[in-house]
């Protein structure tokens, strides 16, 4: 097993692509298991089979990469997708995540994402949602996954609905 911590973060675009391709080849040739730590969603999108989204030290959503990106439910996952400056997206649709990232020594009560969450309810301030399995292999730590999917659009959900 090989753990890759932001392996291409400081590289030029073309170097980044050749390193990624090389890593893919190594993975295939030696049947390796790779763990990629990254904040770059397009790389995660092309490189990984499964994806775990972390917020304030915890997984908030885990599942097949394709499912999480296309149909992820956690409002944080959806906000991340929305804030990715993808070349194919309309710039006016790219939105930053409201609020500031969690203070590691003073994590909010209840759901740690609730201060920034656009669909938060009273319950989210009191109770911490567990990572609950949905259909398939996906699991999400949110009390209101269906509402999140309905209310919060992402570049990929818009693409699907067209």
């Amino acid at each position, binding site marked *: 097993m090989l753990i890759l911590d932001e392996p291409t973060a400081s590289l*030029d675009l073309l170097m980044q692509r050749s390193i990624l*391709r090389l890593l893919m080849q190594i993975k295939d040739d030696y049947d390796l298991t790779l763990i990629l730590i990254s904040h770059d969603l397009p*790389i995660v999108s092309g490189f990984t089979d499964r994806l775990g989204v972390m917020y304030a030290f915890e997984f908030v959503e885990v599942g097949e990469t*394709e499912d999480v*990106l296309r149909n992820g439910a956690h409002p944080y996952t959806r906000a991340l997708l929305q804030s990715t*400056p993808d070349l194919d997206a309309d710039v006016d649709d790219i939105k930053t995540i409201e609020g500031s*990232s969690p203070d590691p020594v003073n994590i909010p009560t209840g759901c740690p994402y609730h201060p920034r969450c656009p669909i938060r309810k009273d319950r989210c301030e009191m109770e911490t949602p567990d990572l609950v399995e949905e259909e398939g292999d996906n699991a999400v730590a949110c009390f209101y996954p269906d509402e999140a999917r309905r209310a919060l659009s992402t570049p*990929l959900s818009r693409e699907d609905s067209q």
Partner: protein
Amino acid sequence: MSDADAPLLELENVTVEYEERPLIEDVIPDSIVDRLGMGEEPVRAVDDVSLEIGEEDVVVLIGESGSGKTSLGRTAVGLQEPTSGSVRYRGYDIEAVEAGEHVQEIQYDEVRRSLQIIHQDADAALNPYRTIRSQLAEPLKLWYPEMDMNDRTERLLSMLRTTGVEPAEEYLERYPHELSGGEKQRIAIIRAMLVEPDLILADEVVSALDVSLRIDVMDLLLDLQEMFGTSFLFVSHDLTNARYIADKADGRIAVMYLGRIVEIGTPEEVINDPKHPYTQILRWASLPLDPTEARETIREPSPVMTDEAPDPRNTPSGCRFHPACPKARDPCRSEDPELFGEADGHRSACFRERDDHEYWTAQTIHEREAEIPLD
């Protein structure tokens, strides 16, 4: 020498070279250095580049390491002297103004104040031992000595509030280590904006930040740009950030390769309809967010024809991109293409822009001509 219609900033045929001398050459006589052939060729970071930046204009320079984008940016704001060519601020040659010419019309201090820089590393740009108040007050004391303390404090507080650093009173008394990365970058931005410059060089200002913070900081810069009418020269290695800024600000993107601008135009033109093979390859190299597409693209072999990284110490003859270019043909080896196209339009430094060029009847320099996969 100058007229009211002169653009804010004009770079004309600017070349920047750096001498690269091994340390040992400083301790042995020049005659021996020459005989041993040790004296190295200078590195040409920027090679004969012309660029105009107007009022309230936004230009993004993109390119890889060694493309000369930072050197060109630093030359534009007067931090680096060009080896040849000229940089004119409102029609006045900056070097001449520094040498004391045109003193009746313009002072060098005014040029210095008008051209500011925001660095990539806000940590290094801020003094860890001084409060935010003391660091931000300094440029005001320097450029506006008539301002009293109360006015200065008012100015700082309003600037902090404008940029969303609140509670502003508290932040003034903090030290840099008490701020997050995004807040430090905001302070660095405020420091550059306080003296009301005409042009700001923003050198990779968001590349060290978390993805979710990047949009925040870019939005802040865009707001300030609109509020104060400042022009911006952004330097970035990231196509997505470049496009975001240039698109939102109605600006231009200039793609640099080995010291040259090889393509320039609106983001719509450069990103959605790239003409230069190098830009097309950069476009290919930016992975899409869509998992199906990203998965396919990531395994595609690179269309770059050489494994060697571009090296400004060893610029190829003819078109400097030809050894790497999948579209290179015979004339590219010997003839250096200029930027073809209308002066203010979409321009590309590639013979493929000229329908009547002998390029079209020439042979490829590779075994076969490869396609650049673009969706």
